[in-house]
């Protein structure tokens, strides 16, 4: 076999892959989604920073934290490093394009330090060692979670130590106006993302006797755990700012709505042993609304609307003998 190696000058492999995935996931209107993101994100960032100068720190920190967290846990990282030409370049370009609308927004608001910080972060990120936690973590906490809620058990294991650090930070900074809420929102997103993987049908059938039973148990159990995670932060934040009690309350309801939505969406689309990555976009939309107190009604409405479909889908696996 001839040894002719053709390596791209510009490492666009991952970017082209993402466009392919976007086109295939949202045929017909992927361009609209992309245009909205490219236009809306800079405007939102600029308006937020201009309205409150502290937002530059929150937004840049949150964005960096989110991307670092994703890099640490992205499922294709080993694949990229092993098989894709110019892996560091490909990752860097992907992150830079992801950060571009945010950087443009900061630039529009003259927050040039934040532009630099995000830019530096996206470049340095690919050289950051990936923590590959070996061993079982948070055993005591995991043992307290019922077996039925294996998603939550897995979430604690997979997100250690980041989720724990975020929770501690939220508690430590409970006296700040928005940061603890934002960090709690990040925890919600982390936990909601654990509901992407579908168990085998055999595992589903031994977990409960029927669709309604499993859905109700999963929702109730997950909400309980989320409440236990959120409550210390929200209570501490309310003690620090008593006049914000209603904001914290509505925010908490919003986060619970997002978790309920994640559970329902999982079982609405449930296919044994599949990974439902497409649900992430829907949950993200719901989560954005849940950030703003009062607008949690949207994810709640989404959850209530899809509950029937989740039950219908689950019924197929509980009762159909030829499915």
């Amino acid at each position: 076999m001839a040894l002719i190696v053709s390596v791209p000058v510009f490492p666009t492999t991952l970017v082209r892959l993402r466009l392919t995935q976007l086109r295939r996931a949202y045929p017909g209107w992927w361009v609209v989604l992309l245009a909205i993101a490219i236009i809306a994100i800079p405007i939102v960032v600029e308006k937020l920073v201009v309205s409150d100068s502290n937002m530059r720190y929150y937004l840049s920190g949150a964005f960096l934290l989110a991307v670092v967290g994703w890099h640490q846990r992205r499922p294709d990282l080993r694949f990229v490093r092993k098989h894709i030409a110019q892996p560091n370049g490909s990752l860097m370009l992907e992150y830079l394009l992801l950060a571009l609308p945010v950087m443009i927004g900061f630039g529009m608001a003259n927050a040039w330090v934040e532009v630099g910080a995000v830019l530096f972060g996206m470049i340095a990120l690919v050289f950051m060692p990936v923590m590959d936690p070996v061993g079982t973590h948070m055993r005591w906490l995991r043992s307290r979670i019922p077996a039925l809620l294996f998603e939550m058990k897995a979430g604690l294991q997979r997100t250690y130590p980041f989720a724990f650090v975020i929770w501690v930070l939220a508690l430590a900074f409970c006296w700040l106006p928005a940061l603890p809420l934002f960090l709690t929102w990040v925890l919600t997103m982390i936990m909601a993302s654990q509901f992407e993987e579908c168990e085998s049908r055999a595992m589903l059938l031994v977990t409960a006797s029927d669709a309604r039973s499993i859905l109700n148990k999963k929702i109730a159990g997950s909400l309980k755990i989320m409440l236990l995670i959120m409550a210390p932060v929200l209570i501490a934040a309310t003690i620090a700012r008593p006049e914000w009690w209603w904001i914290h309350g509505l925010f908490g309801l919003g986060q619970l709505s997002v978790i309920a939505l994640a559970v329902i969406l999982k079982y609405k689309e449930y296919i044994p042993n599949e990974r439902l990555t497409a649900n992430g976009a829907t949950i993200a939309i719901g989560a954005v609304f849940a950030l703003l107190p009062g607008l949690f009604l949207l994810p709640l409405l989404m959850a209530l609307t899809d509950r029937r479909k989740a039950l219908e889908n689950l019924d197929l696996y509980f009762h159909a003998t030829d499915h």
Partner: protein
Amino acid sequence: MLQITDLTRSYGEKEVLSIPSFGFVTGEVHGIVGLNGSGKTTFLNALYGFGRSKNARVIYENMPMDHTNTAFLEAENYFYPGITGHEYLALFQGKDTTTTIDGVNELLEVPLDELISTYSTGMRKKLALLGILKLDRPVLLLDEPMNGLDLAAVRVLEAIVRKLVEHERTVFITSHVLGPLIAICKQIHLLQDGMFLRTFEQREMDQLEAALFADLDKRTEETIGRVM
């Protein structure tokens, strides 16, 4: 020659790989066998350049061996959601061997125009194999390549590996399925607790199974006798 020096790997306190010095003849097929936890995948990762100890040296034909001159077929393969087989293969930018890959696929029969999400386990494994063949590196590491393959596909894989060796490629294969391994490997190396215990040449392959299961059979007999 592929020469290894001071190749070690530890997870915390536990040393999972300890190879002070070992050599492999290049241009041949080498089987790596061992029970679960013996260090086979760790060894392949270390050959590939991942997780090597700092003072380890792996030299292939007088050049450092790493991921630039090696292709690795992992036991568990990652596939991006929402893409077809063709789009997956396009990620492997090695060389222009479209004709070769299409030719090999005549035997493997992977429906490259379909979404990977519709593939069976065997099809995904074959697709992953096509990907690393496309890279056309001098050294190939195949970790449990026969997992998920039907009998016909295993035969095709055997033929592919033999052809690779004819083209002076060096192939390392790990497998729990001894039959095909014995059929295609020039040497099979027994790995236990991260160390190479013994190398079996073709004429000694009949002793392999006994050596592999010696301790296990003894422990199994004792335990089964006690509990059942």
